[in-house]
């Protein structure tokens, strides 16, 4: 790490590769979601890059690294919970505001809902979440590559602009423009698709 702080790119590349198993171990301990592991590894590497000036070569490297990995794992855990909550609340509000043709329709809907067991409710919610995610993914695939990358990094992975710039190779200014354009285009596509 000392060599990396001095600008030795080869040593830095080797270091980043060597720390991956340690980061994965921390991530597994903190955040049980296997699907988030790679994301946590990448975000930890980005944070290591961003705060590499804070490492003191007189002190052991592992506590410094594991503190960063733990923090990024906790962030991922919180994000996962937030996404799950959003999916559930979006589903709830969808049910609450869904167009019902009249009293009979509403009663039928209430009865139908009452018939659902909790397992079915959970399964339906999950299916709805998956469907929305698939729709969004399909729309995002239609975005130009730079806009999609910018949106994924800044809005979905919640990276800082500096981290997203490092990850995507775009400048901070270009990222801001691309995120703005991507959102605008997505909004238009949503409206067009009804």
């Amino acid at each position: 790490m000392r060599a990396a702080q001095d600008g030795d790119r080869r040593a830095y590349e080797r270091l980043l590769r060597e720390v991956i198993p340690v980061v994965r171990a921390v991530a597994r301990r903190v955040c049980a979601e296997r699907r988030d592991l790679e994301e946590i590894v990448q975000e930890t590497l980005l944070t290591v890059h961003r705060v590499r000036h804070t490492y003191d070569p007189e002190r052991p490297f592992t506590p410094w690294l594991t503190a960063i990995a733990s923090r990024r794992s906790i962030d991922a855990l919180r994000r996962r919970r937030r996404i799950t909550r959003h999916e559930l609340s979006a589903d709830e509000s969808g049910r609450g505001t869904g167009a019902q043709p009249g009293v009979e329709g509403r009663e039928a809907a209430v009865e139908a809902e009452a018939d659902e067991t909790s397992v079915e409710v959970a399964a339906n919610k999950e299916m709805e979440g998956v469907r929305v995610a698939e729709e969004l993914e399909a729309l995002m695939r239609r975005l130009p590559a730079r806009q999609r990358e910018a949106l994924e990094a800044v809005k979905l992975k919640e990276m800082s602009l500096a981290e997203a710039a490092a990850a995507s190779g775009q400048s901070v200014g270009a990222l801001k423009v691309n995120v703005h354009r991507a959102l605008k285009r997505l909004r238009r596509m949503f409206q067009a698709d009804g």
Partner: protein
Amino acid sequence: MDTEDLITNLAGRLEPVRRLRPPAVRALEWLAVVAALSALLILRYADLQVFRHRMGSPRVLLECIATLVTATTAIFASFELSVPGRSPRWAALPVVPFLVWLAASGLGCLQNGLGGSARESVHCFVFIAGVSVPLAGSLLAMLRRARPIATLPVAALGALGAAAAAAFILEFFHPFDVTVIDLALHLAAVGGVIAVLTVLRRPLLASASD
């Protein structure tokens, strides 16, 4: 993006960096500058005779020392925790002096009761809040250089340190002993500074390049 690509990208963009000096050294630097500026302010404007007279009471002396130790320990703790890998136990460092500060002030309230003027106590509130702003501002400017990854303890401890330092400086301009209203307003000012900085911690501690 693939992790391999990310590593290649990060290594390709690597530039040498200037290492951050140890947190304790940086905390000492901040405290030294604040001490020097406060000394100038106190020598120029404070009534040191009144201060000396007040320090004749062991309780007031203890309150004053506890305030200073709270400020110093909270500042050291916030600098330590701004760097990854430091023990979270640093956050406990100012707890004892803070409790001693509260206890000594509380004892003063018991002795002095509700006496004193609310208007003078309001001045104390304005003093602590007003002096805390430049102290906290300069402190955050130094703390953000570490780009803290856990901002909550750094902001809360930094705010406690800045507010306690302001409360310590106030002791030199405080011609009367603490009363219930006075203590309530001191605590409201300290709590207000901590609350504002804690709520605004992300934009305040984010580096300009983030």
